[in-house]
């Protein structure tokens, strides 16, 4: 038992990070399952992080309250973003959402309420490990529940063939907006937790590099697999620590391993347990 406590003490930061990263990966997975390469998760995360931090630091709100408002904010922004991008597909959607992320970053960099380039600090550190993992469990439960509904079938059909999906009576536009909003909500949760687990946040925490990272987790896990996304986030979060002993060669190995994994298993980790037809809830 004391070994476990020691282990936790040594690696608590990493363990917290893994929890938050898993939630982030799930937020993108929701969009990817709908076939939308919407790369604004980092921006949604950032918006929620800032809202949560500002409410906590300036208005001294308790954690739960700041989290809820932050999630509301990120969900609303996601739903609003869904409207102008509703006709965009594939790489166009990707670039539009990346552009949106950049716009958010610039705002965060220039507004005084967000602390500009220096960001915000002295954020109360009350997103403890239990809170983070309880949130992860909640998200996972919610997604599992959702996966049993007809909405989940609609999402899969929109991903597989949007045209044919319309032909069976699915309102593709609404499905896309809902999935983007759901992704925004989950990313918002991660953002609020991130703010309360870090001492300070800056605009660069939520830029394209973060977005790239989340995308890598999801694709390595298996583009349409939420479980894969979580495993991908976990594995790739642990990896830098695991190869710490390589010192200066860490970064290059990071890249090599990423390359090797994706070349060896282009379908991602999920391809190891998926056989035959893609399973959908029917």
């Amino acid at each position, binding site marked *: 038992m004391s070994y476990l406590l020691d282990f936790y003490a040594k690696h608590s930061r990493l363990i917290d990070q893994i929890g938050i990263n898993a939630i982030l990966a799930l937020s993108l997975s929701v969009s990817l399952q709908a076939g939308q390469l919407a790369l604004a998760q980092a921006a949604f995360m950032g918006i929620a992080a800032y809202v949560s931090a500002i409410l906590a630091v300036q208005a001294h709100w308790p954690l739960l309250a700041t989290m809820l408002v932050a999630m509301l904010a990120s969900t609303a922004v996601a739903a609003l973003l869904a409207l102008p991008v509703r006709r965009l597909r594939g*790489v166009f959607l990707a670039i539009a959402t990346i552009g949106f992320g950049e716009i958010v970053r610039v705002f965060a960099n220039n507004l005084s309420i967000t602390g500009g380039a220096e960001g915000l600090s002295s954020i109360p550190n009350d997103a403890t490990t239990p809170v983070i993992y309880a949130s992860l469990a909640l998200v996972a439960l919610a997604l599992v529940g959702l996966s049993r509904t007809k909405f989940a079938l609609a999402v899969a059909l929109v991903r597989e063939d949007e045209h044919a999906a319309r032909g069976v009576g699915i309102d593709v536009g609404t499905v896309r907006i809902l999935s983007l909003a759901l992704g925004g909500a989950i990313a918002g949760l991660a953002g609020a937790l991130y703010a309360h687990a870090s001492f300070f946040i800056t605009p660069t925490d939520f830029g394209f590099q973060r977005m790239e990272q989340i995308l890598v987790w999801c694709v*390595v896990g298996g583009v349409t697999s939420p479980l894969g996304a979580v495993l991908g986030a976990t594995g790739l979060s642990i990896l830098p620590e695991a190869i710490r002993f390589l010192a200066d*060669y860490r970064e290059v190995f990071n*890249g090599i391993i*990423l390359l090797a994994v994706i070349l060896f298993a282009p379908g991602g980790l999920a391809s190891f347990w998926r056989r035959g037809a893609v399973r959908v809830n029917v």
Partner: protein
Amino acid sequence: MIAQQLLNGLFLGAVYALFAVGYTLVFGVLDILNLAHAAIFTAAAFAAFSLAADGLPLPLAFAGATVLGGIMGILLDRVAFAPLRARNAGTLVPLISSIGVAIIIGAALRGIYGVDERHFTTGGLDTAPAIHLGPVTFTTVELAIFLAAVVLMLVLSWTLRATTLGRRIRAVAEDRVAAALLGVDLERTIAATFFIASGLGGAAGVLTALEYNSVTLDMGGPIELKGLAVIILGGMGSVTGAVIGGFILGAVETLAIAFGLSAWRDAILFGVMFLLLVARPTGLFGKRALREA
């Protein structure tokens, strides 16, 4: 005053266009977004620095680094994209493998050059004479950079329009299966496309490094995303669109700075891109245009 700003925009836009053309060529031919493009941009800049430091005159260092960029492009394709092509892996997975390669290149550069900013000590970049032409002023270096970019883009345009290779590239971009059936050697054409695309991207890196006389590990960051904005503006797969888009974004950015909105210039740039994308999802010229180069 406005003329000077427009000229600045022209110079900036030329390099943006040069960089973006590399993105759009690869996308046009393979439907892939190559996220290692900016890494090669940076690597070529460092290569030029090394070549110049070893005594090579700047124009030769530029040429050498450009060729090196092209070779890196071919290697990039062989390592990261070709294996996935063979396994029909779609367009999202190669994006990830290009990120892997970008990480490796970045790490290698850091290992070789360390984290410090480098400067070109030869070629008199910081003491280049200024030329005054009516309302505008520019240095000989700026002019040389602009001309180099323009010449490269003209050569590209000619290559695509008038050479056999250019026809093959356009054929593969149009319809890979049909091109293969007509006897086009796919792998060699793709390799040639990467040589050109990454060569131009590398050239853009060297020119950017010369423009600011600065070579840093993160110099690829800003332009990586702006390049995406350019190709969206111009239309994916359209070389003409990338060129025009580059100049438009160069102008937008410079004007933003001129109007005192420098801190917001990236937001304005992406805002313009966003609005255009929403109004006209296929960009100014769309994918079809790779045929007409």
